[in-house]
């Protein structure tokens, strides 16, 4: 397989600034050198390449679109391109960057006190601390507002009780941003590894996102200091704002996975011969390739405009939902088509399609399922809530 070239059928590169292209170049080169040689093996063994975290930090991938506190402060299009290149490597890698940046650093940056920011943000940016985000619970996934985890004010500390599940990085995190109800209202809390009453365990047997840590968090009379509550995070709006940041990164990221699948399938179809000619010469095959390219191109345009809106501070969360929904759908479709075009080879880890395809099943579901984003946009355009 030759090195990733990127897909740019509509000359979008012309709209990118020098820095945006330079940033993409750094991430692309790093993924080629450090990720591609090992990722199939990581996936097969069900292992996240933890050894790459210091390099990701050094290159500035964590919280890259935040300003100050050791963060790079790149614009949102550059940030999106970074996510695209990371997910072109593997969705697990992009998940790591999404969780650390959008779900751990962003809430501390947005809702935290100055002391909390000073204490955690530079260390998270340097990768010395790894974070996780605990919202989902065994009985509350799409409906996080129903959460059962509680926080009780016990004078000079809070006591947390509850279970969180499907938490990326749960079993390796040094800090968890945990969402719990205090007097019936959702609040955010920073829980450090090693706090008595706080533990985590990995979830085994995943067939998707195998190169990513996923686990559960257990809070049993877990006492945390008063200063660990995020002062400005009050109500469900706060975690949903975090999810919006992460969903934005996903909308870009999955296009990277789709591009990897398309590029690989195109090359394969030109080389693989059946009935005496390359399979790319059959109309049915060409149609699939053209469909893939078309959907990728549309998704790229969507991302680019979304990035502009985000940089101008005008983006609405429903626009992010539309892009997350569309791009996850098309990425999964592209991966499935690529898998098909690779024939039997398509089911092996020697090629990328099946790895991306199974990963994308997670991405389709997490950060708001396809249904939920449909209903968010549906609510927006009709004024009628259909999820309850």
């Amino acid at each position, binding site marked *: 397989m030759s090195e990733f070239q990127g897909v740019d059928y509509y000359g979008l590169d012309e709209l990118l600034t020098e820095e945006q292209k330079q940033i993409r170049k750094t991430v692309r080169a790093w993924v080629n050198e450090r990720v591609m040689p090992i990722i199939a093996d990581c996936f097969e063994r069900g292992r996240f390449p933890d050894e790459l975290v210091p390099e990701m930090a050094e290159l500035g991938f964590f919280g890259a679109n935040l300003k100050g506190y050791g963060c*790079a402060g790149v614009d949102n299009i550059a940030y999106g391109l970074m996510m695209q290149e990371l997910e072109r490597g593997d969705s697990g890698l992009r998940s790591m960057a999404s969780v650390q940046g959008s779900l751990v650093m962003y809430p501390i940056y947005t809702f935290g006190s100055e002391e909390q920011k000073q204490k955690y943000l530079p260390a998270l940016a340097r990768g010395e601390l790894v974070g996780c985000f605990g919202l989902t619970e065994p009985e509350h996934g799409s409906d996080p507002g129903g959460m059962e985890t509680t926080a009780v004010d016990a004078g000079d500390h809070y006591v947390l009780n509850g279970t969180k599940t499907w938490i990326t990085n749960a079993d390796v995190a040094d800090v968890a941003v945990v969402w719990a109800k205090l007097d019936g209202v959702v609040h955010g809390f920073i829980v450090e590894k090693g706090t008595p009453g706080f533990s985590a365990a990995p979830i085994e047997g995943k067939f998707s996102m195998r190169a990513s840590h996923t686990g559960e968090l257990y809070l049993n009379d877990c006492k945390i200091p008063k200063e660990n509550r995020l002062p400005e995070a009050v109500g469900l709006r706060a975690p949903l704002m975090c999810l919006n940041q992460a969903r934005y990164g996903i909308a870009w990221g999955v296009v990277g996975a789709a591009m990897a699948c398309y590029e690989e399938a195109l090359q394969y179809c030109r080389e693989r011969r059946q009935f005496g000619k390359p399979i790319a010469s059959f109309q049915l095959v060409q149609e699939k390739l053209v469909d893939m390219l078309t959907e990728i191109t549309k998704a790229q345009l969507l991302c680019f405009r979304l990035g502009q809106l985000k940089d101008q501070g005008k983006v609405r969360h429903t626009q992010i939902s539309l892009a997350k929904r569309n791009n996850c759908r098309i990425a999964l479709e592209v991966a499935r088509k690529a898998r098909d075009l690779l024939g039997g080879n398509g089911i092996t880890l020697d090629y990328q399609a099946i790895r991306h395809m199974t990963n994308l099943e997670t991405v389709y579901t997490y950060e708001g399922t396809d249904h939920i984003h449909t209903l968010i946009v549906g609510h927006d355009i009709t004024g009628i809530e259909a999820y309850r």
Partner: protein
Amino acid sequence: MRVLVCVKRVPDTGARFELTPDGRDIDTRNLEFTISPHEECAVEEAIRLVEQHGGESAVLTLGPEAAAEQLREALAKGIDKGVLLETDGSEWDPAATAQAIAQAVRELESADGPFDLVLFGNESADAGYYQVGVRVADALDRPCVAGVKGLKVENGKAQARREASGGWEIYELPLPCVVTVKEGINVPRHPSLRGIMTAKKKEIRRLTPEKPAMQLVKKGLRKPPERGGECEILGEGVAAVPKAVEKLKEIGVI
């Protein structure tokens, strides 16, 4: 210590390329540009030397305004300042390039003090004349070692190592001196996102050198046959023979 590193903007030839209609140049309209690989190593070496010994590094290029992109790349990796010797984009031969660079070094040195080391790549990835570094050393009357794969600065002296049929040649040079380095001397870093953002704020000085008459004129380029290539189906069975013969004649084997 003060280190100057000189780089050239070259087309990224990893991709496929075409020649211009007059056959004298590579058609660069659809190409990405980059810093020559040996020079990327020279940039890395400059950054490491300053990280080790303190001081300041600068990167210089002779080329069109667009070559500022390559300066920014070096600045993003950690070089402190940029200098652009701006041209109209036309070809400069190695003698003219070296003359302009030597003149610029004198100007920069009279303003900010001498450079202990001036680094070059052994040869550029496009023209590959192997001359510019050596000519600049000569013009500045400084000692020079070319093709260096190991470099140290100690007690005010540079030690340069060259690979020689499985062994090493080791040279000691007084400072200031000129060294041209080869790929393999180090593994160049990627610019970090923070570096890319701070590079925007770093200074790029612009000088406009006079272009002297060219002594060396490139007459033409011939494109090598494409490697790997694509296959073309000429037909099937006996029906394909006339076309196949035609092709063989076309490529000159019969």
